[in-house]
């Protein structure tokens, strides 16, 4: 239990969940891009705003309570079907530019979370090694 609290300090739990979310979303967007020419395919996506809302509530709970009191790994998201955009004649509502832009943003956010996580873990390692 003590080691668990040691490794989940600071912003590590939040960043972990964020990185897992962007990972799962990248899979969905990849499927959307692969099905760009498929008739009657409904575009799938996760809602970033909803996820960040849930994360924000958990962070507030954590800040106002004892450290380590809030579980972060029980966030579940449902697949949504955003229907904004033109419905083409084959029943597909894709927008190539929107998909590519979403995929780029998702990748950048994933890289950001991973870099911050890497930094946190390397700080811990430096402390354990006592700087040698």
């Amino acid at each position, binding site marked *: 239990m003590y080691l668990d609290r040691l490794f989940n300090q600071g912003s590590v739990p939040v960043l972990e969940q964020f990185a897992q979310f962007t990972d799962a979303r990248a899979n969905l967007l990849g499927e959307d891009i692969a099905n760009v020419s498929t008739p009657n395919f409904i575009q799938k996506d996760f809602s970033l705003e909803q996820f960040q809302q849930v994360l924000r509530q958990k962070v507030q709970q954590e800040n106002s309570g004892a450290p380590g009191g809030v579980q972060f790994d029980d966030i579940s998201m449902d697949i949504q079907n955003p229907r*904004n955009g033109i419905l083409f004649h084959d029943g597909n509502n894709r*927008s190539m*530019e*929107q998909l*590519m*832009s979403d995929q*780029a*943003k998702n990748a*950048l*956010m994933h*890289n*950001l979370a991973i*870099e*911050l996580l*890497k*930094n946190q873990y390397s700080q811990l390692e430096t402390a354990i090694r006592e700087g040698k």
Partner: protein
Amino acid sequence: MFEILDMGASALTAQRIRMDTIAGNIANINTLRDASGKPNPYRRRFVVFAPGQAGNESQPGVHVKSIQLDQSPLPKRYDPGNPDADKDGYVSYPNVDLSIEFVNALEASRAYEANVTMMDTAKSMFNSSLRLLG
């Protein structure tokens, strides 16, 4: 988080719609009848851009406000033998000028490329700020 990528995507969508309109104009350059077969020469269409994204106008970006018909007069040619000729023997043709459409297509294509370059630059700026963490 990345407003700039949303702006770029909205611009790409708008330029793509413009290209589609231009392609429609060029394809219908000799169309004298409408879909139901009545004599109704094709009128040139053009897009009207407006600032703001398509969903909510307060976000920076661009969107197509409307696609409108060009109201300039249709050119007439004297051809009394044509079944579509009016009582004076003139046939109205679509008011699509090929050179104007080609220049517009070039402009839309260059604008598309410029937006893609801008998005690439934004992505590489972000990646370089990730390298701050040694």
